[in-house]
């Protein structure tokens, strides 16, 4: 009886075999984030669908939305709705359209109080009718986030919660937590929490709008030659 030769690598690739240093491949669906270097470090190779992802930028304007540009563009072009709940400003249609997002599928929900933000987010996640949910909650407690996580579970939508950097010190039920900072004019992504082994080093993404990139006062911005990036012991990745 001839048996199929099975390579050792193929065997290790089986989803039911888990190696200690490997990231969780727990079968939970993910959506590629569009930055290969970051995808490689995210469990399942992308943003988790049906789960909370916390994004904690040090301050606004460093590229926190641009980080989601590719995934939002992909979802909206497939006709899925992007629901933005309680955004801090008006999402600007010309810029979003230029980033490839089909703005016909973008829906803004404006609320009058932080309680309503949580309520609307829970409704949006539980309905499972959205392609992605982006929400800007203020001062959410663990129990409230837990409710959101439960509402998201089993659904298809990734849920991005934008929170203040101070929230990093609080515990959270979100399976993926990411802190954003700037480093050498780019966006430094620190994975605070993920399923699997922790990640010690930040991932550096060029985050600026393309037209601005060349005008920077930082002279050496070439990804491979960037000695500065190595000094920060960061991994440098092409967008």
């Amino acid at each position, binding site marked *: 009886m001839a048996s199929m030769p099975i390579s050792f690598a193929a065997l290790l690739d089986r989803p039911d075999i888990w190696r200690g240093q490997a990231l969780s491949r727990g079968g939970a669906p993910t959506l590629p984030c569009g930055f290969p270097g970051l995808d490689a470090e995210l469990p399942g190779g992308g943003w988790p669908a049906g789960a909370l992802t916390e994004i904690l930028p040090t301050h606004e304007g460093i*590229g926190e939305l*641009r980080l989601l540009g590719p995934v939002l563009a992909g979802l909206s072009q497939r006709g899925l709705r992007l629901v933005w709940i309680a955004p801090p400003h008006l999402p600007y249609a010309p810029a979003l359209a230029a980033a490839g997002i089909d703005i016909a599928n973008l829906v803004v929900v404006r*609320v009058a109080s932080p309680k309503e933000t949580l309520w609307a987010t829970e409704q949006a996640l539980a309905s499972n009718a959205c392609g992605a949910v982006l929400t800007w909650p203020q001062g959410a407690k663990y129990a409230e986030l837990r409710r959101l996580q439960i509402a998201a579970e089993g659904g298809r939508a990734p849920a991005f919660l934008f929170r203040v950097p101070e929230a990093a010190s609080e515990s959270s039920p979100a399976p993926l937590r990411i802190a954003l900072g700037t480093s050498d004019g780019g966006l430094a992504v620190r994975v605070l929490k993920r399923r699997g082994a922790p990640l010690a080093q930040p991932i550096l993404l060029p985050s600026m709008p393309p037209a601005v990139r060349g005008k920077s006062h930082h002279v050496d911005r070439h990804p491979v030659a960037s000695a500065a990036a190595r000094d920060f012991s960061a991994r440098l990745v092409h967008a």
Partner: protein
Amino acid sequence: MPQLPLEIFLRGSSTPEPFAVEERHCVFVCDRKASARGVRAGMAVAAALALAPRLRVALRDPATETEALLGVAGWAAQFTPGVALEFPDGVLLEVSGSLKLFGGLESLLERLRQGLAEMGWSSVLAGAPTPRAAFWFALVGKQKFIGESAELEPVLAALPLEVLRCNDETLAAFEAIGVRTLGELRALPREGVARRFGQGPLAELDRALGQLPDPRNFFVPPARFGAAIELPAEVTRAEALLFAARRLIVQLAGFLAARSGGVQRFVLSLGHRDKAPTEIAIGLVAPSRDAEHFTLLVRERFASLELAGPVRELALKADDVVPLPDRNLGLVLEQGKPPGQWEPLVERLRARLGSEAVCGIASRAEHRPERAGVIADAGQKRLQLDFGERPFWLLEFPRPLAEIGAVPSLEGPLELLVGPERIESGWWDGDDVARDYFVARMQNEALVWIYRERRGEGGWYLHGVFA
């Protein structure tokens, strides 16, 4: 529906006091709290009040009873087109053709029982090959189901004569000759019975046995839906009305299912004692007949409702019924949560947050930045435009920036990276702008979109954030 005369008063909410319905100064029917105190049907109202001093007594209201019966018939038409009314308190359904569709008799009965209970009606369900026999079983409180005509006769024979609903004198006359059951009546010589009591009782019995035809006029549901509940006590909190509203919503959903229709709008009106009723219109993004969804929307509206005054009556109206075919079920079950429906989510959000809270954004052929991106109805088609570098966030109102030594400043001096991009536009509508836009970097490396005003006093403004 043995409790119909009572339940038209009590189904909206419960009362702490015992309750009875009177007819000709006698108790016609009373609730459990009253019977626990010894109040019985047929008792004089004065005697009942002596037994239960806090007893609330309402006059029997045949018009409302009939309306309720019609409502139940309209709801029940979802199970079969053959619905007939048996006044004053019965509804007959011809279900032999519907059993398979609803998964057999037991499953159909369960749906009937549950639906009636949700509308606030207690019920006795019985079935037989003839409508007359089925109704008689229900009248004596027997939840009996007989499928074969051959089995009918012995069971009918045991029924008391009261099911004939003839007057008291006739009943007394039967009793005088020792006849108490239908079986004993049938055993008497037909001619003699016919001579003394008329053809009526015998003909009824023959119809029950299927030996005489018993044609029925089937009920035709009205084109519009309207139903109301009178509340036994005035309600002052909107949330407490949900209980009564739910009863009407279940009735509406059944009515719509019977018509294979849905509604896109329904109106709840709250009746007050001496004010015009409060009307609450509930709109839907797409037609629906889902009772759970309707209930959710009403709950959200009630949560934010300030009542104009105590509510005495609750009515539900739906005028425009549109066709809404049943959805075909997929052959293969999908894994995980099934994809949800978008419209109910939008309705829920709008019901609680206000209809302007949910909106889309749009791009317009316009050079002025604040006009190129606008709020639009969710899900509209938009045109795609090619602009220069634009920020993801736009401030609704440009914010003036401090200027330190001719350099604009926002938490420290700003470094201008790209610009100027001159935008001069809008001279034709009087809201013209003349600005030089720059992409600038803050000390903390955030990128912002700022402009220098070229008219009037000049100055720098923050207009966007490159998030």
